[in-house]
């Protein structure tokens, strides 16, 4: 088994090449002890390819660089596959020179050879290969040109070893760059084509003093509409009908002759629980498609740039903006995408603030209450909740920044890659990458919790019963006093909120079971409008769902997971309390 390490700068197309080489033979995990993703795959069975994070150098103290260095020093690696951006060669070769220190053969892959050509850059590949003493191959990964040849080279073995003399250890950055300039001078022929002309023109608009924020808001508006009005939501509705007709009715029929508790376990417990979450898949995938498009096209870097000033007030950088946006879809992939942030403290703070970006799952609760209590003003009510989440994120960020997360500000450096139209296949791949995290949680945690909630709501100590006298109801009655000052203190609401720990959408389902199916007309008997709003605020802010708690635990440990649960409960209680009680005073 040949073991190959895949290395390169960010934005060079490493992921695309990794996917092309390994197909679906991939495994994703974590490097031991750090929140750095470890990706492994197999090329035609006999080559193991380990994808290392995108880095610029091997010695500037980040976790990504440490992990890569450790792996290369381990003695396991037979060959390094170094992807460089042919249209941006100088800086890319800096990493190459750093890699030569490890005395491992290098295969240099010049990706984006087409972009280089369009920019008038012509290379003497043979000369470059001789000067660096590495095998070189030109590739256009987006079109899959050269990938087969690359696989051939890797399978043939017999690699040229780069850097026969290990003098590169002693050179500092300036000296390495001088060497690179010397080499490029000998192998590069530049014609007089203006480089990245279109990118310049677009940036003049996108970063323009007057147009940048309107353009930004417009793009966000497009994405949210795509998700909630044009594509995502309609598909979700279709899913719901489909599930009801085919899956639920189908299962009920199949189980007609089995004992009622078993049928209930399967249909109401397992299918109901998981199903109520799965119908959100179209909405979530739509949002992720939009975010992936922004990332792959290069616009996200610009968005991070214009949001940086605001994010700094929260104690974060512009780079944290992307995970926050993903959080409006589902917090689970959002917290995972926070891994791209440089410092552990930034990642933790972002992970704590993400749940305040009102996720998709809460929407059915908002929609139900808004139409039951504030007909005609639904959009305003829902928008106010989203806005409240954002405002609180700022406030909490400022508080945390001054106390728990006090640190020196990390330098903010982000490359602005040239704009490009994302390849359709890659776009889908990136979207799915984000969405599958959500789906996996649905299939595992939510499935098991659904069964538990089903059990608690159908049984008490004397056997099977209905929900009003179940264990869950007893639990609900126990915690009801907690909610009385908030205006919605009864056991039914308590139980619904507990079920919301599993997945926020389930709150509506549980209320349907407890209060009866015509919720819109039943609810006004149990809430006044102010209490309804207070309830919605509580739903916005309280403890994240089990999937997110599990993710927090996995990424940041037990302490963080517990802290996240606790601070959100406290925050939810305080804000709901203020709204209900101050509101009641006003209404007198």
């Amino acid at each position: 088994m040949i073991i190959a390490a895949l290395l390169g700068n960010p934005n060079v197309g490493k992921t695309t090449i990794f996917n092309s080489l390994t197909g679906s033979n991939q495994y994703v995990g974590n490097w031991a002890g750090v929140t750095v993703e470890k990706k492994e795959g197999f090329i035609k069975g006999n080559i193991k390819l380990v994808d290392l994070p995108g880095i610029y150098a091997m010695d500037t103290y980040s976790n990504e660089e440490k992990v890569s260095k450790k792996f290369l020093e381990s003695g396991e690696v037979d060959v390094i596959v170094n992807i460089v951006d042919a249209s941006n060669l100088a800086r890319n070769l800096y990493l190459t020179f750093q890699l030569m220190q490890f005395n491992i053969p290098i295969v240099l892959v010049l990706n984006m050879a087409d972009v280089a050509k369009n920019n008038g850059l012509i290379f003497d590949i043979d000369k470059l290969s001789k000067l660096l003493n590495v095998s070189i191959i030109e590739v256009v990964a987006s079109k899959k040109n050269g990938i087969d040849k690359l696989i051939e080279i890797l399978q043939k073995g017999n690699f040229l070893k780069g850097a026969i003399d290990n003098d590169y250890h002693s050179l500092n950055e300036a000296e390495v760059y001088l060497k690179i300039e010397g080499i490029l001078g000998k192998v590069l022929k530049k014609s007089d084509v203006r480089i990245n002309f279109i990118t310049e023109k677009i940036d003049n608009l996108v970063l323009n003093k007057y147009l940048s924020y309107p353009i930004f808001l417009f793009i966000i508006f497009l994405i949210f509409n795509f998700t909630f009005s044009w594509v995502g939501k309609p598909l979700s509705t279709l899913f719901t009908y489909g599930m009801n007709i085919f899956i639920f009715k189908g299962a009920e029929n199949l189980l007609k002759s089995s004992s009622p508790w078993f049928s209930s376990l399967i249909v109401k417990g397992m299918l109901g629980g998981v199903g109520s979450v799965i119908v959100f898949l179209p909405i979530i995938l739509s949002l992720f498609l939009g975010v992936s498009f922004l990332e792959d096209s290069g616009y996200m870097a610009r968005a991070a740039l214009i949001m940086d000033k605001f994010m700094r007030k929260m104690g974060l950088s512009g780079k944290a903006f992307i995970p926050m946006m993903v959080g409006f879809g589902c917090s689970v992939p959002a917290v995972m995408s926070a891994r791209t942030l440089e410092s552990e403290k930034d990642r933790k703070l972002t992970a704590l603030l993400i749940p305040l970006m009102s996720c998709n799952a809460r929407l059915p609760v908002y929609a139900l209450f808004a139409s039951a209590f504030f007909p005609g003003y639904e959009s305003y009510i829902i928008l106010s909740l989203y806005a409240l989440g954002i405002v609180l994120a700022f406030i909490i960020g400022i508080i945390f920044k001054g106390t728990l997360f006090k640190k020196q500000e990390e330098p903010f450096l982000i490359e602005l890659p040239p704009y490009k139209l994302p390849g359709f296949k890659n776009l889908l791949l990136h979207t799915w990458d984000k969405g599958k995290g959500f789906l996996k949680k649905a299939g595992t945690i939510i499935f098991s919790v659904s069964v538990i909630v089903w059990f608690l709501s159908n049984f008490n100590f004397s056997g099977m019963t209905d929900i009003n006298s179940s264990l869950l109801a007893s639990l609900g009655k126990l915690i009801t006093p907690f909610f009385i000052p908030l205006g919605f203190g009864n056991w039914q609401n308590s139980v619904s909120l507990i079920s919301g720990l599993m997945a926020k959408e389930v709150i509506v389902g549980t209320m349907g079971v407890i209060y009866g199916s015509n919720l819109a007309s039943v609810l006004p008997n149990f809430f006044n409008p102010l209490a309804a709003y207070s309830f919605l605020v509580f739903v916005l802010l309280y403890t994240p769902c089990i999937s997110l708690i599990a993710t927090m635990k996995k990424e940041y440990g037990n302490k963080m997971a517990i802290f996240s649960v606790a601070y959100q409960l406290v925050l939810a209680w305080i804000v709901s309390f203020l709204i209900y009680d101050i509101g009641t005073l006003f209404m007198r």
Partner: protein
Amino acid sequence: MSICDLKVGESATIDFLSGEEKLIKRLLSLGCTQGTEILLKNTAPLGDPIVVNLRGFSLAIRKKDAKGIFVK
């Protein structure tokens, strides 16, 4: 003078870097070495961060960090 003193569209050569050790190392590994030509390409709408261009690529950096890039 520092790169922050340039006007948008102006270029200069890097003289030396000053500032926090980690930042300097990162800037150096990205190619901000002495004698490198660097261009102030753009600024964010509110003036901060700024966008510089060197060795064929564009990099966004906060003014407070860019102040340490001295040019001539």
